[in-house]
């Protein structure tokens, strides 16, 4: 049986990989294949084959698809040498503006940009590959949609009922926002790292700073890479480093938001992000 939204089949998945070079509580990886153990099921992954999923009792197709659009898909992509960032992206002037961050608000900011007329490219997992670097969504992601929680949807003026339930038991919804059109691989334009300014007392202001040193850019990008440790254990450190350096050649900024409500911060954040993407 194939999954309704993603490229997967149900089947038996081994508990472990005998030749694994990386083992953690959740992941075992050997060159070219990996097992991802999650509460919704066990996934056997290879770069160019459908994921094999042994679903857990009670897990739904939505549960499986959700994981494949996120961390599981990111790992499968990495096994094939196409590394991915924990980030979201929109198209600005035919180039990709990638937003990552160690704070919540990334998806909300990207949704805000989509509502301002920028085409949504990806949410949660952004694949960056090639030289010059090109940006795309995971193939499993299908039509680009952004995941929003009810409070963010309200801040953006969206009707929660218009969103699709992500998976049972989770409050967030999926929204297709902004201009439509077939998602394509497009050139990387800018990288923005969203962070919180704890000293800011002005919730209606956003500030930005360029990353001065390449080493700082590389460290930040690897810090936002999905499954960086697995990639390193598979002997792909050189590729990983080159990948980060290539992305780091694009303009990169730290965008600071206040600790206040994301609703107050959103308009200046979106405006500042647009100003950076010139």
């Amino acid at each position, binding site marked *: 049986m194939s999954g309704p939204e993603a490229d997967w089949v149900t089947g038996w998945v081994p508990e472990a990989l005998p030749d694994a070079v990386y083992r953690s509580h959740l992941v075992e990886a050997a060159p070219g294949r990996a097992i991802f153990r999650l509460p919704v099921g066990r996934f056997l992954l290879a770069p160019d084959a459908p994921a094999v999923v042994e679903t857990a009792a009670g897990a739904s197709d939505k549960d499986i698809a959700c994981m494949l659009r996120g961390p599981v898909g990111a790992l499968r992509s990495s096994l094939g040498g196409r590394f991915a960032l924990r980030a979201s992206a929109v198209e600005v002037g035919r180039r990709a503006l990638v937003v990552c961050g160690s704070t*919540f608000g990334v998806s909300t900011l990207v949704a805000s940009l989509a509502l301002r007329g920028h085409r949504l490219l990806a949410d949660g997992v952004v694949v960056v590959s090639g030289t010059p670097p090109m940006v795309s969504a995971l193939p499993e992601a299908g039509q680009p949609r952004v*995941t929003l929680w009810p409070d963010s949807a309200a801040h953006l003026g969206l009707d929660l009922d218009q969103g699709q339930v992500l998976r049972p038991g989770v*409050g967030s919804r999926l929204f297709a926002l902004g201009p439509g059109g077939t998602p394509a691989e497009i050139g990387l334009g800018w990288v923005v790292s969203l962070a919180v300014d704890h000293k800011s007392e002005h919730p209606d202001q956003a500030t930005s700073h360029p990353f001065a040193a390449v080493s700082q850019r590389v460290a930040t990008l690897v810090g936002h890479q999905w499954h960086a440790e697995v990639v390193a254990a598979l002997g792909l450190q050189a590729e990983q480093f080159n990948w980060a350096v290539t992305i780091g050649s694009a303009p990169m900024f730290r965008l600071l938001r206040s600790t206040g409500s994301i609703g107050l911060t959103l308009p200046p954040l979106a405006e500042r992000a647009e100003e950076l993407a010139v």
Partner: protein
Amino acid sequence: MARTVWLASYPKSGNTWLRAVHEAVVTGSEPDINDLGHNHIAAARWAFDVNLGLRSSDMTREELDLLRPWADAVLAERAGTDIWRKAHDAFSLGPTGEPVIGTSTARIALYVVRDPRDVAVSLAHHAGQTMSWAVRAMCDPDWTVSTGSQVLGPQLPQRFGTWSEHVLSWTKQEWLPVHVVRYEDCVARPVETFRRALAAAGLRASQEDVALAVERCSWQRLRRQEEESGFRERTAEGTYFFRRGQVGAWQEELPVPLAEQLVEHHGPVMAGLGYLEPGGDWSPATLIAGA
């Protein structure tokens, strides 16, 4: 191998003060209150996501409770030295009967406890709520924060439960050793109390070093830092995280009926901790007997 030292407490019980003193001892300087040891609170969403390579926002509450100890284990395994992490959760078991707080790589829990009447006053100011709200929360067995059905916050769901339940959940559990630190003893005998707590967690420090750390973490100094630089853990506008810190402030600020309500709900545990008589003493035995 590096281990986790859990600094556990009900909210507003002195946890941050202990973290600051630990940081001052380790670094030999006045700690930056916004950068206490770089280690995440037990329920930090970002720590969960990064250490497991997952998106906590896509997980159900049950899945989070199941996976959190794995994230704690990964964080400890990756650390070069012991990591000291704050926890406000009650000690509880997840869907498979394993603790939600990671114990497999934990060294000890330092459990900080404070007179619940002072906690109520501090909690009300911290949350920007009324004293009645604080007392009601502290008597609610289901009190849970960051439940996240409508809002995605920086922390994962944490169940506190009642004040008594919280105290007993940590002090009676048998998954890891626990050393109880009374806030009132930290105020009355700071050097001795902090030094014993640090030693219990395997950190030997001289009396002079601890005395210097205590001086560097005086309430006035921490408050001044907050005034000058803000504090990321402050939640309510118009108040300070390091607000007063005084033992017995409840006698001036907490209405008598609310104080009585707390004694009615938590009397046995308060008695076991020596909180029902002026200058009352306690021991692990009296705590267990009181409960």
